[in-house]
């Protein structure tokens, strides 16, 4: 009870902060916050694939890239944003589905390498296929969309555009996780063989976990392109995949709010730590090591653990009455 009140309070505070923040920040700060929203969407996708369904993926940056390139390419050719957005998302969903097939055969670090290779492949396409992607020069002057004739051109407007997307994606992800699918994903992560014997079509759910995660990567990319207004291959190399993985793991894999927190750490912390100049990465690395050693379930796992001990001890002891009743009725038979 206390737990849910605290969580609700923290959530309300965060929402108020996110809504009012643009009035307090300069454009660069607003840009960073927008980037946080965009990266959170990609991390929510990866959290579905990795945190809930337990399928390791080092290819999330590739899907952000595909979403970004599709949007950049098509909007600079005059297509309306919403259409490129849908096409980017659907394309990533489909490619993610196909990338799920290796996961039906291999798991864990083997799967990590399969997806890593895929990320590299996509990066090379971005860099080398100049006729399509502009090669290392990328695609510049990506326009920002307008919604119902209202231009999203200013940093503040586009920030709210990203925030609205994050809200929608969060609601959809929340719905999914609370549905039987969420339960099936967790079953897939915890014990696929048992899940299979209980009628869970692990093949379909595995493919879906990949496709949905990839689709959200695409959505994130579709926002990334107009946010930065320029796409080139570099941001979508393996580094971003590792960074997104870090966001999920640091935030708390399999926790709904993990990606929000993880993205906060990965996107905002480096900015705040700039005053340390060259040392911020070192400090950051040490922080991550300490966190992983002492709390492999991430920041939210840590919070969870702080609240749990009292609950666990209560759970270990069934109510005395129930035990007595059960013993008695067993005895009678």
């Amino acid at each position, binding site marked *: 009870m206390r737990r849910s009140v605290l969580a609700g309070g923290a959530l309300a505070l965060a929402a108020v902060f996110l809504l009012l923040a643009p009035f307090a920040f300069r454009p660069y700060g607003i840009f960073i916050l927008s980037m946080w929203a965009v990266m959170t969407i990609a991390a929510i996708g990866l959290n579905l694939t990795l945190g809930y369904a337990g399928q390791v993926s080092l290819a999330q940056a590739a899907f952000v890239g595909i979403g970004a390139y599709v949007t950049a390419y098509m909007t600079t050719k005059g297509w309306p944003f919403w259409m490129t957005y849908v096409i980017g998302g659907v394309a990533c969903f489909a490619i993610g589905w196909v990338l799920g097939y290796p996961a039906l055969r291999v798991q864990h670090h083997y799967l990590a390498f399969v997806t890593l290779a895929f990320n590299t492949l996509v990066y090379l396409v971005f860099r080398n296929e100049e006729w399509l992607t502009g090669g290392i020069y990328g695609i510049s002057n990506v326009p920002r969309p307008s919604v119902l004739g209202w231009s999203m051109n200013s940093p503040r407007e586009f920030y709210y555009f990203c925030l609205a997307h994050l809200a929608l994606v969060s609601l959809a992800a929340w719905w*999914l996780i*609370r*549905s*039987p*699918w969420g*339960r*099936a994903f*967790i*079953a897939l992560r*915890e*014990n696929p*063989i*048992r*899940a*299979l*014997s*209980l*009628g*869970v*079509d*692990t*093949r*379909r759910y595995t493919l879906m976990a990949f496709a949905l995660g990839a689709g959200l990567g695409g959505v994130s990319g579709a926002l990334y392109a107009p946010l930065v207004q320029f796409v080139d291959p570099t941001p979508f190399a393996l580094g971003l995949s590792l960074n997104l993985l870090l966001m999920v793991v640091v935030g708390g894999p*399999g926790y709904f709010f993990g990606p929000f927190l993880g993205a906060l750490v990965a996107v905002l912390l480096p900015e705040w730590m700039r005053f340390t100049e060259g040392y911020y990465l070192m400090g950051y690395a040490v922080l991550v090591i300490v966190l992983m050693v002492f709390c492999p379930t991430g920041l939210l796992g840590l919070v969870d653990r702080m609240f749990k001990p009292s609950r*666990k001890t209560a*759970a*270990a002891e*069934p*109510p005395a009455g*129930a035990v007595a009743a*059960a*013993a008695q*009725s*067993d*005895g009678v*038979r």
Partner: protein
Amino acid sequence: MSTVLEVRDLRKSFGGIVAVDGVSFDVNEGEILGIIGPNGSGKSTLFNCILGQLKPSGGDVRLDGRAVTGMRPCDLNRLGVSRTFQLLQVFPQLTVRENLILAGQEHRGTMLSRLVGPRDAGLTQAADRMLAFFRLEHLADEEAGGLSYGQQKLLDAAMAFMAGPRLALLDEPAGGVNLTMLASLRERLKAINSEQGATFVVIEHNMEFVMALCNRILVLAEGRIIAQGDPGEVRRDPKVIEAYLGH
């Protein structure tokens, strides 16, 4: 009385080792069939071949006369065949109630309706009935991983019955369960058998438990059936005594 499960000349070898060597038997509707045999006699491998967890090297499995050899476990489960495993298999991070809901959810609706359709559709109620039946209701909201071994074993069995299976294959349901709980488990299984008409095949090492529970017993040794009959006959069979009870 109709035949629910027919197993014909089932074989499974791993490299040079023949784990199941031409096993044939029928399971009749409503019966409780016990399978006993020394360690390594191929009992669990037999289960895994029947249930599609392993691909048999040869032979046929029929469910209600329909060929189901090599069918995927999830499809077989949705045809009304459920199982438990020798080692404990619950989902430790889901609550006890959610474990049961999971065990029932894939039997209702389609993939799509499970995403966008009604959330619950009576599953919580069904789960709570099953919890009450196995006397685990006081643990409903606990994470399954926090339960005692015996409680998890009961939950494991409860999950197998959540979808109201026609046929349940239980691999050592009594392993590691204390005496009080054992009596309770046997009563629960008998009740499900008589009230719901569910058919059972039970692998078990606990002789007392098997003899009290089963109508008929198969004895497996080195991948073959060496004896079968009612508990009394099997107990007296010299081959069985030599292969199994004598040790």
